[in-house]
């Protein structure tokens, strides 16, 4: 019996994706949440299997979009991400391309930069340990090296290691992870990772403008204390909420990110800020503000991923692509003029 107890203990200490739970993990409230979420998951699984009818394909449609907002069951997640992001098509149209990248000549500097981050990517995940078998560090290394040679303008940027790591955990497939990474970096996200990081800087400014419109008191607080947005949100954008929000919540966000695009990041950020407006406004100085922005990404509000995902489509109010495009244009000018 002791062995069983130990086994169970271990299973609880490591989540289904291989991440060790922190010592202060609140098992009781997580269990309470998960038993409720399990009902949702079961209902969604039935709906999805009816939608897919055993086929490995779907067409984009309003119904599919609605289904995705309610969460893709884990067993279909890789497939749906591949299809709706266009990664599947690219992979099919370029057979052998990934392998050729791996076999080609390597840029030493790029390889060195990637190696530096190998032991620093998910040390809290048992599958990424050097001693793990299979060890996902090798897979991660291959995906990043191949990507750096595929997209030379970007090469390798810290943050991509975490994103590729998640893709590998979900797809359990090296080549699919590569094509999904390409979908994100090459198409879905606007220039976050290239050396000038213009898209990143622009989107941080855009968020600042959106907060001014939708949560003006917080924008005013930031301005009053001279807190630059980049300081509190750069990791939200660069890591797409990895290590910021709980794994399950990140995956639900990514479901929508692959279908609806980078706008989702603003919805998540605005929801976090608006929901915790009163809390943030308690801050009376610069370090306080930074601390509040760390606090608001923790707790039941973000753990309850299903409710959270409903919130991101209601809480920030309307957010048209036209508005974002316009803001991106003006903010890009502003960033460029600042040098």
């Amino acid at each position, binding site marked *: 019996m002791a062995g069983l107890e130990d086994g169970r203990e271990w299973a609880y200490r490591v989540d289904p994706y291989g991440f060790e739970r922190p010592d202060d993990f609140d098992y009781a409230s997580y269990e309470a949440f998960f038993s409720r979420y399990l009902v949702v998951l079961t209902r969604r699984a039935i709906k999805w299997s009816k939608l897919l009818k055993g086929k490995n394909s779907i067409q984009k449609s309003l119904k599919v979009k609605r289904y995705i907002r309610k969460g893709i069951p884990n067993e279909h997640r890789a497939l749906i991400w591949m299809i709706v992001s266009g990664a599947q098509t690219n992979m099919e149209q370029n057979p052998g391309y990934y392998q050729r990248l791996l076999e080609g000549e390597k840029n030493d500097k790029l390889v*060195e*930069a990637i190696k*530096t*981050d190998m*032991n*620093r*990517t*998910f*040390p*809290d995940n048992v599958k990424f340990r050097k001693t793990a078998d299979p060890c996902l560090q090798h897979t991660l290394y291959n995906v990043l090296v191949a990507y750096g040679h595929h997209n030379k303008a970007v090469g390798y*940027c*810290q*943050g991509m*290691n*975490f994103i590729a790591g998640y893709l590998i955990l979900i797809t359990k497939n090296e080549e699919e992870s590569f094509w999904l990474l390409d979908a994100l970096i090459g198409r879905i996200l606007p220039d976050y*990772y*290239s*050396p*000038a*990081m213009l898209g990143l*800087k622009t989107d941080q400014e855009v968020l600042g403008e959106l907060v001014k419109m939708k949560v003006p*008191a917080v924008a005013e*607080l930031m301005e*009053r*204390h*001279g*807190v*630059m947005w*980049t*300081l509190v949100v*750069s*990791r939200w954008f*660069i*890591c797409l909420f990895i*290590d910021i929000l709980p794994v399950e919540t990140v995956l639900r966000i990514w479901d929508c990110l692959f279908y609806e695009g980078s706008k989702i990041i603003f919805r998540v950020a605005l929801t976090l800020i608006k929901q915790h407006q009163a809390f943030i*406004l*308690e801050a*009376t*100085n*610069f*370090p*306080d503000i*930074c*601390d509040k922005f760390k606090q608001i990404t923790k707790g039941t509000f973000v753990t309850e991923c299903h409710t959270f995902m409903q919130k991101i489509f209601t809480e920030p109010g309307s957010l048209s692509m036209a508005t974002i495009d316009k803001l991106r244009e003006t903010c890009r000018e502003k960033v460029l003029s600042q040098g």
Partner: protein
Amino acid sequence: MSRKKAARSKGGGSAPSAALPPPAAAAPRSPAPAPELPRNGGATSGRPSLSSSGEFYDLAFKVMLVGDSGVGKTCLLVRFKDGAFLAGSFISTVGIDFRNKVLTVDGVKVKLQIWDTAGQERFRSVTHAYYRDAHALLLLYDVTNKASFDNIQAWLTEIHEYAQQDVVLMLLGNKVDSAQDRVVKREDGEKLAKEYGVPFMETSAKSGLNVELAFTAIAKELKHRSMKLPNEPKFKLHDYVKKEVRGSGCCRF
């Protein structure tokens, strides 16, 4: 010096900086922070304040850790802050973050707000902005990584361009615990530091060698600059470091 609790402002709208230290102007040699930068980043004197973690302090300074990716900036900070080594349990730093530590220097409570930065080149355009109101910079290289040492000159150029002229600067050769993997000799580090007139020491975030000293030396220098007493002899950072520094032990390269 008495340390009574500083008044904290209540209610969001009024006197937001009541609990904050007075502006940097209180310290004659420290630069005034640029308007968009943290206003409490400046040195203060004359009035004790309460840091956000609830610790009292008399002076506050901003210190930045810079250097190539993977040289051990985060580990150095954690070693200093928590006295622990993050063996295999830390992640690469993306962007920029800071942690506070209050230490006592000659009976004065000095709060260091220590900024940890991503070392990858492309993040520099993000971190530049923070150089401007840094009071001190710790520039790190990794003694087991030649490239990180070769890049020190480029870092110095960058620092000269973006940091304040009188910024306190120190060069640290980290990871000296890895004696077998060492490729940069201590003498090379010393020579480079001398060339640029910068104090130098070798450190190990893993063993803790000279970590406390690096931050203490910086804190002493900053404290002396901002509250120089009339009959006090001038504090000489170079001499202090030379006197206090410990070698990396038996395995001299």
